[in-house]
């Protein structure tokens, strides 16, 4: 069935009457807005904040302390994270007041773990300033469910990895010859306005998104 269907669909499309030539795609507008590093940070902080993302500005030395503080305030009993990333190594080596759930243990059942976790921590590839979002590429070490299922997602964002736009990110990272299984832009915590347009956070994904912004 399907191969015949394929050939007929493509055959019909090839018979279509040609129309006027499509206008030229002028992409200049997508990358026109260039900001200074400081402007990029401010824009991202302001816009992500406006959609309920909690952002803490911190430093490369202090972020583990900030993390512990956030978890304490939110009273999460455990944290799901990868112990083998640069970030994970820093937390796992110290005594903490919460339990560790490791998503990069060899024989881990990530689904069970993710549904059990009260909070999670992931690294990010960076951020984009124009639409204001984080860029995430889940990996075997930091699987997809880690940033999705636990009610609190804490993301580490290094300030010097904030680009102007998504268009810039895909170009400089040569995404088109290099797509991972799953790539994500995340702008805030999960939300809906399906009941009388009332904005409500935390439908299916994390109820809270916390960004630890690591300043240089």
């Amino acid at each position, binding site marked *: 069935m399907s191969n015949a269907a394929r050939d007929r669909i493509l055959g019909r499309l090839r018979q279509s009457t040609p129309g006027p030539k499509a206008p030229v795609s*002028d992409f200049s507008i*997508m990358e026109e807005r260039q900001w200074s590093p400081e402007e990029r940070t401010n824009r991202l902080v302001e816009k992500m904040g406006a959609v309920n993302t909690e952002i803490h500005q911190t430093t490369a030395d202090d972020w583990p302390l900030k993390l512990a503080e956030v978890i304490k305030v939110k009273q999460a009993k455990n944290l799901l994270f990868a112990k083998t990333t640069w970030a994970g190594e820093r937390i796992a080596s110290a005594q903490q007041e919460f339990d560790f759930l490791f998503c990069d243990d060899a024989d881990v059942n990530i689904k069970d773990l993710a549904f059990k976790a009260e909070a999670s921590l992931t690294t990010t590839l960076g951020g984009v300033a124009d639409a204001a979002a984080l860029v995430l590429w889940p990996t075997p070490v930091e699987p997809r469910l880690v940033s999705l299922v636990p009610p609190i997602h804490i993301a580490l964002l290094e300030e010097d990895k904030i680009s102007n736009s998504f268009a810039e990110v895909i170009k400089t990272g040569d995404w088109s010859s290099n797509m991972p299984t799953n790539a994500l832009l995340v702008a805030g915590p999960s939300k809906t306005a399906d009941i009388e347009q009332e904005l*409500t956070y935390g439908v*299916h994904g994390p109820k809270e998104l916390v960004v630890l912004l690591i300043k240089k």
Partner: protein
Amino acid sequence: MKPEGTFRQRAKEALADKELRGNFRRAMDSLMVKRANQFSDVDEWTRLRSLGEAVRKRTLEKLPDLLEKLETNCKKNGIQVHWAETTDEANQIILAILQRRGAKKVVKGKSMVSEEMHLNAFLGEHGITALEADLGEYIVQLAEQMPSHIIMPAIHLNRRQIADLFKKKIDGFEYTESAVEMTAAAREVLRREFSEADAGLSGVNMAVAETGTIVLVENEGNGRMVTTVPPVHIAVTGIDKIVENLEDVTPILSLLPRSATGQDITTYVNMISSPRKEGEKDGPEEVHLVLLDNGRTRIHADPETRQTLQCIRCGACMNHCPVYTKVGGHAYGGVYPGPIGKILTPQIEGIEPYGDLTSASTLCNACVEICPVKIPIAQMLVRLRNEAATGCPESSVKEAGVKKSTVEDMVWKGWSTSHSSPAAYSMMTAVLGMTGNMMPKSAPMLKEWTSVRAKPKFAKKSLHRMVKKLGVDDE
């Protein structure tokens, strides 16, 4: 599928429903303001929109080649591609995948194409439960209704109606009209379903030919859940939702959420390029992409109707339509309501059941002004009205000519003759001046004309005559 009754009947009922009208008015007003705030920079809007249009037009120009390229690249990535000419074929393909996996329960992200296929009912007949996970779709499914808006499916219901519904359908739900608590109740039910489902089904916002990537945009996270948690992910899309390159995604990612809900970007942009790879701990083992024609090749055949397929389903045309905002989505009787529905539904389903939608418009052009990919909706409505009434034999429009009326044809012929001969014209005006007012309101055609307008009154003497009598030369 044939809708019940005519648009006119359904619209009349909707207009009399005060609650419904209130629900729509409130929602549409706020959406219009939010969109307008996004595009206050006219230069940016103009250029971005031209780019959006160019990207979509280029896709359609190269569509067969891009579909082949998409297939090749998806296969390379391990995504299985299926082709369906009809909704029936698409349903069968999905059923076969699910049966092979022994799947009994499917969780769904929002997909208008699956509505086109009536997939939930079809799977139900085969003992498979399909559960909608987008909150709006979930509400509409509980209410056993159709979505009334392509972006906000449950916009026709207010919080009291939803609370009543939850009370009836969700075990242990304590009656509350708080949106936060109702959302929490749905979250709890659906969390369980995500973790137990045998398969996830989603739509597609864009499929990228260059990389074999499925792009989904959403706010809730249900789309990420259905494409990540269950062991199988099936994505369904019309053959029109393709873009050539990854770069082409960028203007649409900007135009779509800003036009739809006035957001800079949706909470999530989810790009899927393969099933779970060796060493990865989650994600589906199988990813399938079902490409559905269902009349789209016919729409593509003609350069004018082809523009219908530029649509990125932002729903802005609905929010700005003076007809839609008053009658709501269900009055249109089909899957796609509002201006895009008026041009898309009759072309997919046929002029016979849905041709009357093309006259549910004043041609005010509000939709054309805000459409982010510049679809000339009003022009297309006129084309479809013509197709309905005349139906030239080579027309590519489904069931062109079915609304042809001999009486109407005769009247127009008479009009044309009388206006091309001075003698016939003067005779006609003289006769109408003497006898026109005696014509009963129930006379053929006059009846339809006067159903919403006052009956025209003919003057004894035509203006033409009076002016002539004053000595003005009419040559």
